[in-house]
């Protein structure tokens, strides 16, 4: 199964719509609730990152019997130093974003913790692609 969602940079009122849709699909597929929770945390953080940092993005979700593969591709500033971005507490979020309670530097660490495999590729000035794989068994 394949699903695709669009994410609009800067539009916080829509943040979470893809996560919510994927959660409903996984519930319908009777995936273990603990696994759904991990996927939802990782996807929500990825979605918020696109809203907070990028101009726009696409979320591509592939589900088979063994795993869920989520690819989040954005057009945005990119990440110059991925190791630094992975550090808990490091953030480049704006003051306005931080005031909303985002941008605490916990997003990527939350994603790492809640996925089985994570790949990040980034091109500064162009965008970032996250690939997250979680096994369903």
């Amino acid at each position: 199964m394949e699903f695709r969602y669009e994410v609009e940079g800067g539009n916080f009122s829509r943040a979470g719509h893809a996560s919510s849709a994927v959660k409903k699909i996984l519930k319908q597929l009777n995936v273990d609730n603990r696994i759904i929770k991990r996927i939802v945390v990782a996807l929500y953080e990825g979605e918020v990152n696109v809203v907070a940092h990028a101009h726009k993005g696409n979320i591509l979700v592939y589900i088979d019997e063994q795993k869920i593969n989520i690819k989040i591709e954005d057009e945005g500033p990119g990440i110059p130093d991925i190791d630094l971005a992975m550090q808990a507490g490091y953030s480049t979020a704006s003051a306005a974003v931080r005031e909303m309670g985002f941008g605490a530097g916990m997003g990527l660490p939350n994603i790492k913790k809640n996925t089985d495999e994570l790949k990040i590729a980034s091109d500064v000035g162009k965008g970032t692609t996250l690939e997250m794989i979680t096994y369903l068994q």
Partner: protein
Amino acid sequence: MKVRDMVQKLGLKVFSGESGLENEIAGGYVSDLLSDVMGNTDENFVWMTLQTHKNIMAVASLKELAAIIIVKGLQPDEDTIAHSNEEGVPLLGTDMETFEISGKLYGFLNN
């Protein structure tokens, strides 16, 4: 304890999400950082915060929280209220500060 009992015992205001008042409470969490709540709460927790924007409902719904309590007499945004009604997650309010409301709730949950 159900959310309804907590509302009564702590004198909380119910802004919206009345259909979730029968939710059972499994614990509580205090934070104003959304990623912290995403990463560290479990279902049926009550979340106490000063954030009032719509994204708190997205987090509460994804994490299947029992309810949100907005502290210090702050008012939730209109679209936060609308989302709370759609999701059936109660949005509650108190004039108390976070320290006081969380202390009271902790006391109730541990007695």
